[in-house]
């Protein structure tokens, strides 16, 4: 039996209300951080372990867990694991997790979204009821990203969804079905749940959030191909945090000729904790913050150790430009800004994300969000981008 202490959902701003998609600087990891970070900020110090459930991992190797923890602002000592799975795996992880567990779910395809659930000792109860694994590989993705689509919705419905739910022998009609499109789910549920924006792992969190917002209690099911999982949701007090800016189409941009941008992995590794955790070195002698951290204090010259300290993730633009000329490997126009973080006096040079290029102005307020800043020699290079507060610029 798990208690849902906090739920958070996140949808990227790109695409349409019917189908959100990831931006060029987003992937499952950045979506996961966006959803998970909302929970961490809402309940600081509550998270003791992290589970990420997704089928859209940007890479199979390469320190996914470390990137996730740094983006969430959690210590690198936090237990963290990645589960390759869809909606049933997500419901299973949430309904069986121990208090202190932050289950994050993220989907890129076919629609993008993310959710996070913090399990605690209070909040609405979610108890595992049953699960059934089945194999009906209507869609197959291999490790290099190639897909095979059998494309038989009727077979999916009859021998996938229905057969899996039959095996669970539910005594009630569920109040929510995650993992299915709105049309397929409609005939299986009681009441009138909202259409879920995703069909993967994150659809479970969207379904739970919707149920809690309309104070519905009962069975919640999650389906993927011929696998199903069911849990029982009781009413209770759970904080539900929603993040979804207005949907917008991609701005018109031009992709410069392909370019392979070199990466120095020693430089990547040295910068990692500060760059992905958005942490400054703090001079032990005079307290001055340095981003990036430096051996010798910029203020007092002390060369004592400089422990890292988290920086605020809100900021105001000190200066900004728009790059219009074609740049190999990048989409122009794009904006770059120097942003002052909170009231720390620390500035960061960042790309601007989440809006129309060539609109960033001095004085704009916004937040620093984890993004995939570049892919260098095939290696994703994460860091922070500035997302102006909605409505701050036209």
């Amino acid at each position, binding site marked *: 039996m798990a208690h849902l202490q906090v739920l958070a959902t996140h949808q990227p701003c790109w695409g349409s209300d019917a189908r959100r998609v990831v931006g060029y600087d987003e992937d499952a990891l950045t979506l996961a951080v966006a959803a998970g970070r909302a929970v961490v900020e809402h309940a600081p110090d509550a998270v003791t372990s992290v589970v990420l459930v997704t089928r859209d991992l940007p890479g199979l190797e390469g320190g996914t867990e470390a990137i996730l923890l740094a983006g969430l602002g959690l210590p690198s000592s936090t237990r963290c694991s990645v589960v390759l799975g869809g909606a049933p795996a997500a419901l299973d992880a949430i309904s069986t997790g121990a208090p202190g567990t932050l289950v994050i779910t993220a989907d890129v395809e076919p629609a993008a979204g993310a959710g996070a659930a913090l399990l605690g000792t209070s909040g609405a109860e979610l108890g595992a009821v049953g699960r059934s694994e089945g194999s009906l590989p209507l869609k197959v993705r291999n490790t290099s990203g190639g897909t095979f689509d059998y494309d038989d919705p009727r077979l999916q419905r009859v021998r996938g969804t229905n057969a899996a739910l039959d095996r669970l022998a539910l005594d009630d009609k569920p109040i929510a079905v995650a993992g299915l499109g709105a049309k397929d789910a409609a005939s299986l549920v009681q009441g009138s749940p909202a259409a879920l924006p995703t069909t993967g792992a994150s659809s479970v969190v969207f379904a739970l959030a919707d149920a809690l917002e309309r104070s519905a209690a009962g069975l919640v099911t999650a389906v993927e191909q011929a696998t199903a999982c069911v849990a029982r949701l009781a009413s209770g007090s759970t904080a539900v945090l929603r993040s979804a800016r207005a949907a917008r189409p991609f701005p018109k941009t031009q992709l410069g000729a392909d370019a392979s941008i070199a990466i120095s992995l020693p430089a*990547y590794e040295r910068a990692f904790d500060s760059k992905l955790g958005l942490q400054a070195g703090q001079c032990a002698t005079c307290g001055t913050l340095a981003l*990036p951290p430096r051996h010798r204090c910029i203020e007092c010259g002390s060369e004592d150790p400089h422990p890292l300290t988290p920086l605020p993730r809100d900021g105001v633009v000190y200066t900004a430009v728009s790059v219009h000329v074609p740049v190999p490997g990048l989409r122009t126009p794009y904006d770059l800004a120097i942003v002052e973080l909170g009231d720390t006096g620390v500035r960061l040079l960042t*790309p601007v994300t989440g809006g129309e290029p060539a609109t960033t102005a001095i004085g704009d307020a916004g937040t620093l969000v984890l993004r995939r800043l570049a892919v260098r020699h095939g290696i994703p290079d994460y860091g922070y981008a500035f997302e102006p507060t909605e409505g701050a610029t036209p």
Partner: protein
Amino acid sequence: MRRVAIVGAGMTPFAEHFHLGIKDLLPMAVSEAVAHVDKGFDRKDIQAAWFGELVSTDGFAAGVMADSCGLLDIPVTRIENACATGNDTLRNAFYAVSSGHVDVALVVGGDKVRETSSRATFWEWMSMTRDQAWDYPLGLVAPANFALHAQRYLHESGATREHMAMVAVKNHKNAVPNPKAQLRFEISIEKVLAAPPVVTPFGLLDCTPQSDGAAALIIVAEHLAEKYTDKPIWVRGVGLGVDRVMHQHKQDMTTFPATVRAAKAAYAMAGVGPGDIDVAEVHDCFTAVEMISYEDLGFVDRFGAAKALEAGETSIGGRIPVNPSGGLKAKGHPPGATGIAQCVEIVEQLRGVASNQVDGARTGMAHNIGGPTAVSAVTILSTDVS
């Protein structure tokens, strides 16, 4: 400390010299400087050479210079200090002569920018000049470094893109009679404002072109000056200033502290002030950089650049003409050569033979800023020995 005189100065035209390599351009500039010495000059008199090049081409810089110019019996040292390379190369040679260790020195600058595709140059040069982890992956292309300053400068000073355009119009006009200039045509303010955007607030006509070229100076100790010329030009002051490298650490981006520091050192050594400068070659890789530099060099008050442009103070015939050669903007900008070529122009100005002569000029200045915006070198030249 001995006084130091320039007795010869020469340069190649600045252009896209697709048909000439660095090994062609360097000896061309050196030969012009040698031929420029009034009373004749024997290359065997050169005791040491300094060569400024930003990016090595066709081999390691000092060796390429010595080899291509036939200077195998003297020490040759390469100087690289970002876009301040040119004036810093002269500074280093100056110290050797003024200290008494060298009597006759050759100062050469050159770069072959158009040796790679203009697209590839973006990333190739950026990887050398940006923090590998923090700045390089962001697409901080060269104009963006200066544009970040310019945007803040416009925001705080009240100057406009029209004022920036006035710089471009002035420098293009100055380049027309200069046979060494790359862009010898006039433009209008309307044309500058209507040019395609590069990096805001810079349009295409706010930007220096990409250039190849080389320039050379021959400098000698005071006691040898009259052996070579009756019109020595004295190196009165040299200065170098640096600043924080990453933009994040530059507290006030409406100014270039590197320039303030370099100018302070050069003025102090020369025993002159901004009011004594009759003509100046100022680093105008982008139009707004010339404006900010007026203020950093002390030519106008803080945020006074726009008014000075409106009043024509920096045009030929104005209070302090700036970039009579056409500047980087229209003469061109092969980085290692740029500062040396500025000095070539000032030598001609002080001798009264420049293509855009400033009447009665006796003291002139050359200024570079680069790094980006983290290093500056300033040279003060004069007809007056003290």
